């Protein structure tokens, strides 16, 4: 062991990081595998099986229903607004936190984490308290005939709030570990701040950014709690896919509910596959940018 280590002083050998015996390892892997199978894989398969219980015809029939289509459309719309917004703001916030020293930085960090630590229901209720008819801004909004909660803007806001940390949380640790010296080098070489951001900062974090965006997207499409509070559950109008699944389920339309659920699960799987594919396709570059030198 010691001998071979001496020949390979620079490379990593994770399999040698522990001293567990082979049986222990096998047991641990089996436990993890069983757990994932029971908790994740099996229920997911059930969703697809339930959706197909009455055949493909009924499954596709669900997607011809205008309320279901409206729910799909609304979900995509909400994600199309919330995800780019959170990507941009998350990037800006991470940049500020990782690259600059300023007063209130810790407060900002805590605030970014807040949506993770509070229940999504509370995130929704915050907007009811703010924009509801009995809320602080409610009367003013009512006078100007602006509808925020129980309408699309409220759903977008709630989704933005709940999914805000995903991009920032991915970027901050990476940006902090990368430090500021590459940016300083760029500035010393005469680059403008914007050029530095585009050519140095952004390329260095693009994988983390992409990963954050994918996670953010998955959550934005799947968010239930916060959106449920501000939705008003108007069919065909303010129901997102997760809410519509609940409605179909409560309408005793179980096949329909599982059909929409399998579509939602399918979208999440596509997201994960996209991520895996990109990781595989750009593995070399990924290793080059994440390694410190």
């Amino acid at each position, binding site marked *: 062991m010691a001998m071979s280590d001496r020949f390979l002083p620079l490379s990593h050998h994770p399999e040698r990081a522990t001293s567990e015996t082979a049986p222990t390892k096998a047991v641990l892997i089996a436990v993890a595998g069983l757990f994932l199978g029971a908790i994740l894989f099996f229920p997911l398969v059930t969703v697809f099986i339930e959706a197909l219980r009455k055949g493909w015809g009924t499954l596709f029939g669900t997607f011809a229903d205008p309320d279901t289509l409206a729910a799909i459309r609304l979900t995509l719309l909400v994600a199309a607004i919330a995800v780019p917004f959170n990507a941009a703001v998350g990037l800006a916030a991470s940049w500020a936190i990782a690259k600059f020293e300023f007063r209130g930085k810790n407060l900002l960090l805590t605030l970014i984490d807040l949506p993770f630590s509070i229940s999504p229901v509370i995130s929704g209720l915050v907007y009811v308290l703010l924009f509801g008819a009995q809320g602080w801004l409610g009367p003013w909004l009512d006078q100007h005939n602006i509808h925020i909660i129980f309408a699309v803007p409220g759903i977008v806001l709630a989704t933005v709030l709940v999914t805000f940390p995903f991009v920032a949380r991915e970027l901050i640790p990476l940006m902090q570990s990368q430090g500021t010296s*590459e940016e300083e*080098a*760029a500035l010393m*070489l*005469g680059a403008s701040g914007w050029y530095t951001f585009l050519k140095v900062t952004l390329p260095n974090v693009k994988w983390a950014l992409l990963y954050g965006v994918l996670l953010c997207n998955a959550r934005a499409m799947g968010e239930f709690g916060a959106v449920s509070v501000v939705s008003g559950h108007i069919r065909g109008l303010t129901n997102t896919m997760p809410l519509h699944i609940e409605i179909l389920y409560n309408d005793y339309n179980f096949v329909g509910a599982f059909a929409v659920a399998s579509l939602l699960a399918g979208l999440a799987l596509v997201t994960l596959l996209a991520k895996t594919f990109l990781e595989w396709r750009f593995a070399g570059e990924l*290793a080059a*940018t994440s390694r410190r030198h």
Partner: protein
Amino acid sequence: MSVPVRVRNLEKTFGRYPALKGVSLDVEAGELVALLGPSGSGKTTLLRAIAGLEQPDAGQVLFGDIDANTLSLRERRIGFVFQQYALFRHMRVIDNIAFGLRARPRSSRPSEAAIKSKVLELLHLVQLDGLEARYPAQLSGGQRQRVALARALAIEPRVLLLDEPFGALDARVRKDLRKWLRELHQRTGHTTLFVTHDQDEAFELADRIAILDQGRIEQVGTAAEILERPATPFIDSFIEGIARREAQARDRTKPHVVASR
């Protein structure tokens, strides 16, 4: 091309910790000066303040007759080599070196062909011909160091600043690079300041040495001046090792046996 650098009464405080307490220093055009001192002495802060990466609380930096404060980072045109090189990890060597030229505003930006020939010329200068398509992760420490230097030279700097240029290298490579840098400086003639905590390095390489301690410059002079007349007890003890080795080197020339270490 090269200009003298004059530092006047620079002060800088981080929080309550004073890093520079009124530092003044004159560096002549084309001179190679070492900023030597123990860690926390303020030498890196001084270098970064000259570069413009730190804003001093008081004092002045002059490049020739120009107050550095009136210049943007781009206008200062300072070649800076970072301690860990700070190469752009996602760019090939050629793109790293070309960065400063490509970052220029369109009006003063050379053509891509001109940039390429300039980069190849610099690669040749730092003896890295043929490595232009590598990524930084695929280079050895010494090679990265030389890429960083070529990148800094690409903008035709007024002044070259190096922060612990050999700090991250192993001893053998250090020796080689030291000699090589000395030759390169003789050839290009840039006004150069470098930070080091290694007395041997400073004494061997620099025209003059500025020794810092606790935010002050304790003494500036040539190696011989400092060895002969250390200005303070601190310097006396700080250069003790060098003085002893110098003495040993003289002794070794005498024809008697010395116990080997």
